[in-house]
């Protein structure tokens, strides 16, 4: 634990235990999403499925990166991951992104994907609101993750025909925002 780092956050008026719990819940959401997206991605078959396989895979890897980036901050603030992985799954901040009943229904697949991203956008927006101006390191991390989750949501939303995302999918390496926390 980074004792003084935690003290500074407490002095700024943040309930650190509550913040740590939120970070653990969101880390659980990231790792479970990585797992469920693996199942979704392998089921994106046929001509329609192939079209979104790339963005599903990018989102999957980046969500795993989010988990990796969150873990050190949890421990810096004096928290820890649950010892039991089933408990970790069940404390996820977002519902499981389960395979739709008809995996060949690409629209249904996209709905699952976009709702998972929307839950993440809400979660990290909330953490940013809690930590802005108070816990600079967690804010920086949550903001970086939020940037990527917003892009994930916009990709899937665009494929659903809800409107243009305004940008293209990734050119180059994954996690352009979160990458700096993983070096």
């Amino acid at each position, binding site marked *: 634990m980074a004792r003084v780092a935690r003290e500074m956050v407490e002095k700024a008026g943040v309930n650190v235990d*509550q913040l740590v719990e939120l970070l653990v*819940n969101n880390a659980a959401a990231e790792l479970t999403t990585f797992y469920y997206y693996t199942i979704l991605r392998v089921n994106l078959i046929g001509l329609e499925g192939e079209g979104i396989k790339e963005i599903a895979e990018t989102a999957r890897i980046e969500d795993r990166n989010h988990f990796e980036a969150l873990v050190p901050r949890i421990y810096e603030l004096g928290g820890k991951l649950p010892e039991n992985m089933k408990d970790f799954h*069940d*404390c996820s*901040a977002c*519902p499981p992104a389960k395979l739709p009943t008809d995996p060949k229904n690409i629209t249904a697949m996209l709905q699952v994907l976009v709702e998972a991203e929307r839950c993440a956008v809400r979660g990290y927006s*909330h953490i940013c609101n809690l930590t802005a101006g108070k816990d600079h390191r967690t804010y920086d991390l949550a903001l970086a993750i939020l940037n990527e989750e917003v892009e994930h949501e916009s990709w899937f939303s665009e494929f659903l025909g809800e*409107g243009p995302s305004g940008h293209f999918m990734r050119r180059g390496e994954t996690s352009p925002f979160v990458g700096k926390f993983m070096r």
Partner: protein
Amino acid sequence: MRSQSTGETVQGCRLPREARVDRMTETAETAHPWPARLPTITRQRLRKYNGRDGTPVYVALNGIVYDVTDSFLWPKGRHYAEHEAGADLTRAMDQAPHGDDVLKRFPIVGTLGDD
């Protein structure tokens, strides 16, 4: 884009004024279509439905009591490290990163009454 209902120039996606829920005037009767007769659940009674020891998980919002027992996001009556079930969350909704619509898909079990 010009709104057909108000004539105002609007940008992006915006609902006509009559379609937007005015939270200041929203009441238990206008917020959500519900059966004519629902039990009144007092705040004191609501506190018992906190998800602990197997009790159902109820929350109140804008005078309506919802059963969120089946929600993944209310495990054992706790939501997102900050909220406990068995309570009126109307004020807390102002700070929430989501709107009232997240509760619309859950069963309504009563209206909130004073103790």
